[in-house]
């Protein structure tokens, strides 16, 4: 579901980019993820949760994973994807093709 990338040189985080274009209902995400994660805040345009690491979840599906470890970032992105995939919180966009940058060597 996600490709894992380093957002910038000085950042202590990784960014997970959705392979397919979709949007998220963050209020529903809060409900779903609240079962397994600590909700840090729901700012309406951005949901922040804490699980294995802190994650900022954007409406367009991008994740900012606050960890120095790429392995942990990939694992955390996979956990989020597992909880959300197939749920009503995800609204897939039709006929838009691949939205994200791809990094075939990395991520899940």
């Amino acid at each position: 579901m996600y490709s894992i990338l380093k957002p910038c040189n000085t950042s202590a985080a990784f960014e997970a980019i959705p392979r397919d274009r979709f949007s998220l209902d963050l209020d529903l995400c809060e409900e779903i993820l609240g079962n397994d994660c600590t909700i840090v805040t729901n700012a309406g345009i951005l949901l922040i949760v804490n699980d294995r690491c802190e994650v900022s979840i954007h409406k367009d599906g991008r994740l900012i994973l606050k960890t120095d470890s790429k392995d942990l970032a990939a694992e955390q992105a996979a956990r989020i994807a597992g909880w959300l995939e197939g749920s009503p919180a995800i609204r897939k966009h039709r006929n838009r093709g691949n939205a994200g940058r791809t990094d075939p060597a990395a991520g899940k």
Partner: protein
Amino acid sequence: MAKLVSLISGGIDSPVAAYLMLRRGVELVAVHMDNRPFTDEKNLNKTLSLVRHLQNLTQSPIRTYVVPHGPNHIAFARNCQRHLHCLFCRRMMYRIAERIAQKEQAAGILTGESLGQVASQTLQNLMVENQVVSVPVIRPLIGLDKVEIIDIARKIGTYEISTLPGLCCTIVPKKPSTAARAKDLHDEEQKIDLGALIKKSLEGMYVLDPEAL
């Protein structure tokens, strides 16, 4: 001796601005707006390291205020136009810095802004940011470009600290306004209780004395 309230982040520019004023004999009080959870604790740690470095470099004691700014971001994000977010953020920082300037009997606010460096630093946006405070906003880097600022940062030893890992603000809009109108900002800010947010920010802030750094 003149005193200024220096808005200082963990980035490259604001410590350079602070240094330029310190070397002119200005006394500084540092104010760090803590953007967590939209950044991480590394930014706060970097800021405190930078203030400590500036203190040692200039032999000037600097009292540091750390102000929680995350709840302000949430209020703006939930209630106001998205593309103006950085303007709301900066206007709020100025308002809070002005309150601290009054408390500290400081003559103005010092920032590391330089013209055109990011979307919030156009002339139009700087003008509408100034409008929310009555004290002068001093911007010693306004005419410098990034290379010139980095050169100074390297010379004074802040560059290495500023470029340590730290998460950039994650609530910045994709297309921030570069030419905000004062009326639009004012109208949007009417949707939230600014006074209550400022009060809460000031109640939540804490102060680190120079020797505590």
